C-alpha cells in the first residue's frame, strides 16, 4: 500500500515535469505542423537563464522566496526573445516545404542554439539550488520529499489550466483553434496567419523555457541537457497524440506513472520504460491516444 502511494507521488511529480517540458512542443506542432527540435535547446536556454539569474539574485541577498519569481521572469524573457527571433528569422521561410526539410531546419537551429548557450554561459555547470533548499521537505508515507517537487506539480497544473483557458476561452485562442483545423479557410475569414504563427511559436518557446527554468534548481545546469529533453518530450507528445494539449497531459501521466512503477519494482527497465510505453501505444494507436486521423493525400 505504502509502495503504491510512493509510486503515485513519484509518478505524479515526474509526470508534471514531463508535461511542462512537452506541452510547448505539442502546441507548436498543432498550429505550425512543424516538429520543433530546437525545443530542447529552448529548454536549455530557459534553464541557463533561470540558473544564472537565481545565482545573481541569491548572491545579492534579496528576499529569498523572490527567487521563484525570478525563475518565472527568466523563462518569460528567454522565450519571448528567442521564440519570435527564431520564427521570424528562420522557421517562416520553410512553411509549405517538405516535413523532412522543416525537420532539418529546426535541427540546424538546435545545433546553433546548443553552441550559443555555450558561448553565452560557458561550459562550467551552474548550481541554482537556492529555491530548492528554501522550500524544505514534506513527509508523505514516511518518506521525506523535497517540497520543490510539489511546487513543480503546482506549476504544471497552473500551466495546463492556463493553456486550456487561453485556447478555449479567449478570442485569440479560438482563432488558434480555427487555424489548427483549417489554415486556408481561417485566412479567408480574415485571420492574420503570421501573427498566429509567431505568437504560438513564442508561447511554445516560453513553455519550453519555463520547463527549463523550473528544472534548473533540481539539477546542475550543464551543456547537453537539451537533447534528452527533446527525445522525452517527443515521446510524451507522441503517446498523447501530436498537437493535442489533453494528449500531452495524458501522455505525461501515463509515462510518469509507468516510469515510477518501473523505478520501484523493476529498476532494470527504467531506462527503457518511456520507449516501451511509446512503442506499445503506437502499435495500438498509431496516432497516439488523442491523435486525430488525417485524410491521405493522393
Amino acid at each position, binding site marked *: 500500500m505504502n509502495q503504491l502511494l510512493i509510486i503515485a507521488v513519484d509518478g505524479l511529480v515526474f509526470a508534471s515535469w514531463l508535461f511542462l517540458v512537452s506541452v510547448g512542443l505539442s502546441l507548436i506542432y498543432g498550429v505550425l505542423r512543424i516538429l520543433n527540435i530546437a525545443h530542447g535547446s529552448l529548454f536549455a536556454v530557459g534553464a541557463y537563464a533561470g540558473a544564472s539569474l537565481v545565482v545573481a539574485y541569491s548572491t545579492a541577498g534579496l528576499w529569498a522566496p523572490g527567487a521563484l519569481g525570478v525563475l518565472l521572469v527568466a523563462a518569460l524573457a528567454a522565450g519571448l526573445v528567442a521564440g519570435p527571433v527564431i520564427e521570424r528569422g528562420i522557421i517562416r521561410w520553410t512553411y509549405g516545404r517538405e*516535413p523532412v526539410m522543416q*525537420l532539418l531546419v529546426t535541427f*540546424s537551429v538546435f545545433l546553433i542554439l546548443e*553552441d550559443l548557450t555555450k*558561448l553565452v554561459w560557458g561550459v562550467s555547470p551552474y548550481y541554482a539550488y537556492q529555491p530548492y533548499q528554501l522550500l524544505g521537505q514534506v513527509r508523505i508515507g514516511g518518506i521525506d520529499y523535497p517540497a520543490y517537487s510539489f511546487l513543480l506539480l503546482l506549476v504544471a497544473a497552473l500551466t495546463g489550466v492556463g493553456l486550456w483557458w487561453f485556447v478555449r476561452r479567449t478570442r485569440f485562442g479560438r482563432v488558434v483553434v480555427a487555424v489548427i483545423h483549417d489554415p486556408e479557410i481561417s485566412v479567408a475569414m480574415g485571420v492574420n496567419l503570421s501573427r498566429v504563427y509567431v505568437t504560438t511559436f513564442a508561447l511554445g518557446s516560453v513553455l519550453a523555457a519555463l520547463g527549463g527554468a523550473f528544472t534548473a534548481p533540481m539539477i546542475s545546469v550543464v551543456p547537453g541537457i537539451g537533447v534528452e529533453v527533446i527525445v522525452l518530450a517527443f515521446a510524451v507528445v507522441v503517446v498523447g497524440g501530436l498537437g493535442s494539449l489533453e494528449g500531452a497531459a495524458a501522455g505525461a501521466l501515463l509515462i510518469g506513472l509507468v516510469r515510477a512503477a518501473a523505478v520501484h519494482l523493476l529498476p532494470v527497465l527504467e531506462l527503457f520504460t518511456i520507449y516501451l510505453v511509446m512503442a506499445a501505444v503506437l502499435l495500438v494507436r498509431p496516432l497516439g491516444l488523442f491523435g486525430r486521423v488525417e485524410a491521405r493525400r493522393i
Partner: protein
Amino acid sequence: MNLPRGALGVLLVAALVVAGLVLPRWLVFLLALALAKGVAVLSVVVLMRAGLVSFGQGLFFAGAAYAAGFAMRWWGIREALLLVPWSVGLAVGLGALAGLLVARYRDIFFAMLTLALSMVLYGVLIKAYGVTGGSDGIRIPTPTLLGLQLSGDDARLVVYYLAVAATAAAAWAVGRYAAAPAGYLAHAVRDNEVRVAYLGAPVSRIVYAAFLLSSGLAGLGGALTALNVGHVDPGLAYWTTSGELVFIAVLGGTGTVLGPLAGAVVYELIRSYAFKYAPYAWQMLVGAAMLLIILFLPGGLWSPVERVWRRAQG
C-alpha cells in the same frame, strides 16, 4: 545517380590507392576516417532517397563498432576480414529488428523513433559498465590481415586500403541499388507513397529493404571507424554522431553516390582544423551551414556542378 560510374569510379579508386603511398601518414589516417564516415553517410542518403531522415544511424554505427570490440575482447578474433563482415552482419540484424517497428513510420515519427533507439543504445553503453566499459569504451588492438601480424605504419596503411576497398564496394552497391527496381520504387515512395501502393508495389517491403541496406552501410562505416581509430566509446551512438551524418548527407546532396563521399572527405578535413580553432562554435557553424544549404541549395553543394555537367553533356 547520374554520373558515369564505371570509369570515374575506377579512376577515383586508383587515385585513392596512389594517395595511400604518396600522402603523409596523418593525412592517410584522416582520409581513412573520412571514407568510413562517407560509407555511413551513404546509409543516410539511401534513406533520404526514400524520403526518410534518420537521426539515429548511430545505433548501427556504434552497434557494429562495439561488435568488433566484443569479438576482439571475448573471442580474441583479430582478423580484419572476419571482423568487418561480423560487425556488418550484426548491424543488419539490429536493423532487421528495429526496422520491424521503425519502418512503419514516416517523416517526423521515423526521425524521432530512430533518434530514440540510438539514445537507448547510448544509455545502455554508458550504464552497462561491466560489459561495455562505460564511458571509457573498449580498446581495439591492431587487427591482422589474412593472419599476418601488422604493426605501426603498415597496419595504418592496411586499414586505409581496407577502407578504400569497402568504400568502393559500398558505392558500387548503392549505385546498383539506386538503379534497380527497389531503388526506383524507394524514390517513388518519397514522392507519393499512396500512389506507389495503388500501383501494386509493396511499399512496406521497399522501405524495410532500404532500412536494411542503410543499417548495413552504417554498420560498415562503424566497423571501419573502430578498426581505424583503435578504440570505441559510447559517443559513437550519441545523437551528435548521427546528426553529423545527416549534415554531411545534406551537404553532399542525395542525388549521387560521389557527392556524399566527397562531402565526407571535405567535412573531415575542415573539421580537423576548425575544431582546433573554434571548439565551442563548431556545431554552430555546422548548423548555420546546413540552414544555408537547405534554404538556398536544396540539392547539396554538389548540385550546381551537376547542373553544369548535365548541360555540358547536352
